[in-house]
């Protein structure tokens, strides 16, 4: 295992400390327990947004703490959802009296730990609502699974709900728009390589030099299916087909097209994939109103990508375009 790290057990702590120093204008970093808080939190009268989960998905979530997006992020150990204590600490730190929204990716561990933290926060008199994101169409949402995973759609939920909170929406309003974004977002990913979790020291799965995993998550889990090498256009089609038919998205829809890198795939490939995705959508009469291309939710150094479609309405567009000032997403100020 080759990584730019010191002690594998201190990776998250040291990295978050570095993040805090690099972005001292945006955030305050607490190390016991580990959480990252917007520099000017709590903001009186504003709904506080807290998200978190295992580390290794950077810039998610700490990279989205700041004006117009999250008030706090809670990074757990690599690929391990945080415990309730730091979630509680973050929730307290951002409560400005208008309540706190927990944005939770749908994994058993995240859901359970955020649940416990919410119960504890309630005991401290803080009103908490939770929105669970589950946009990954690679997983069947049925009684026979833990339900769909929350993946790249989470970034869009955080941005749009964050803008709603920033303009002064109430907790219920912010939660409702977060739910609406999640309900209109669908994602699917693939991987060319596995990733190496520092404490594990070996690749998260074995994959041949001529194989691609389709339907992977963001934790180095193997996917649903393995295929041989294929041209990019075909791979994009493989991701888009199940997404398009799921919501479904169709003629006349306006969408945000999000091509996300898993961490180890160069931009040149992401934009090449974007080109095909854009082409397919045009052919179907779907209008790409907004786009996002880059490494926004990753699985360490995994090579691969995901595609997310978000069906937009006017309010979502307005909130998407609203100013945001975070380490990883910034415009309008």
């Amino acid at each position, binding site marked *: 295992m080759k990584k730019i790290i010191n002690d594998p057990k201190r990776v998250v702590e040291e990295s978050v400390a570095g993040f805090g120093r690099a972005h001292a204008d945006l955030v305050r970093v607490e190390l016991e327990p580990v959480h990252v808080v917007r520099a000017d939190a709590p903001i009186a009268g504003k709904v506080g947004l807290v998200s978190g989960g*295992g580390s290794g998905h950077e810039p998610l979530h700490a990279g989205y703490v700041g004006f117009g997006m999250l008030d706090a992020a809670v990074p757990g150990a690599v690929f391990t959802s945080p*415990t309730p204590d730091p979630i509680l600490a973050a929730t307290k730190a951002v409560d400005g009296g208008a309540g706190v929204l927990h944005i939770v990716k749908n994994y058993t561990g995240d859901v359970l730990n955020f649940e416990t933290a919410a119960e504890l926060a309630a005991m401290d008199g803080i009103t908490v609502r939770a929105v669970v994101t589950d946009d990954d169409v690679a*997983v069947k949402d049925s009684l026979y699974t833990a339900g769909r995973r929350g993946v790249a759609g989470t970034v869009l939920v955080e941005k749009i709900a964050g803008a709603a909170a920033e303009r002064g929406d109430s907790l219920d309003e912010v939660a409702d728009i977060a739910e609406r974004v999640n309900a209109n977002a669908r994602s699917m990913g693939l991987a060319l390589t596995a990733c190496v979790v520092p404490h594990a020291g070996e690749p998260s799965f074995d994959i041949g030099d001529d194989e691609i995993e389709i339907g992977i998550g963001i934790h180095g889990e193997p996917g649903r299916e393995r295929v041989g090498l294929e041209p990019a256009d075909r791979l994009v089609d493989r991701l888009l087909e199940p997404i398009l038919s799921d919501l479904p998205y169709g003629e006349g829809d306006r969408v945000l097209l999000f091509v996300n890198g898993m961490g180890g795939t160069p931009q040149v490939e992401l934009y090449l994939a974007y080109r095909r995705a854009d082409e397919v959508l045009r052919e179907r009469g779907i209008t790409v109103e907004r786009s996002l291309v880059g490494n926004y939710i990753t699985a360490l150094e995994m090579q691969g990508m995901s595609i997310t479609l978000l069906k937009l309405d006017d309010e979502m567009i307005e909130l998407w375009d609203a100013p945001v000032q975070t380490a990883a997403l910034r415009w309008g100020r």
Partner: protein
Amino acid sequence: MGLDITWAVDWVRRSADVIAEHRVELIRLDRDIGDGDHGENLDRGFTAVVPKLDDLAAGSTPGDVLKLVAMTLISTVGGAAGPLYGTAYLKAAAAAGSESSLDGEAVARILAAARDGIVARGKAESGDKTMIDAWTPAVDAAAAAAASGADATAVLAAAADAAEAGAVATEPLVARKGRASYLGERSVGHRDPGAQSTALLLRAAADAASESTGA
């Protein structure tokens, strides 16, 4: 002869040892059908519990030890296993109450409470390929042993045997809860890491008991 605080403390120390020893094995099992952190997570948790044992007040009961384990796992493990095992130990502590010595019946009751806590939080059913598939056979075996008059040590031995068999029996199953469920049919042929860690922990309990009772 019942199991007392000495047994409880010894169980925790043995748990920490056995998890450290099997850390890589649990990581590998989780790597195959999950995200490869189960061994690391539990190791972090039990490593954190051990030094806290020294702070136990004089006159502490097995229930106090179980509660200490619960709170420490909840605040250090994270992931799915943290809250699930945390709840298990919390419910076990409640079932143990303030008794200073646990007989076979009590042990069976405590194991059932732990299992019920996991089910209440995780909603898994038998056959979903989770730690429940080690816990439920263990609880059933413990109840049967206790009903036939076995002492605490024998009850734990029966539970550990059943948990080990249960863990092995997860291999042919299709996962329907937890991360492994994302794999669908591809989860077949792999042992569930949580079921395996359950078997390890219950074996540690049985070993501590047979040591403490000199059986």
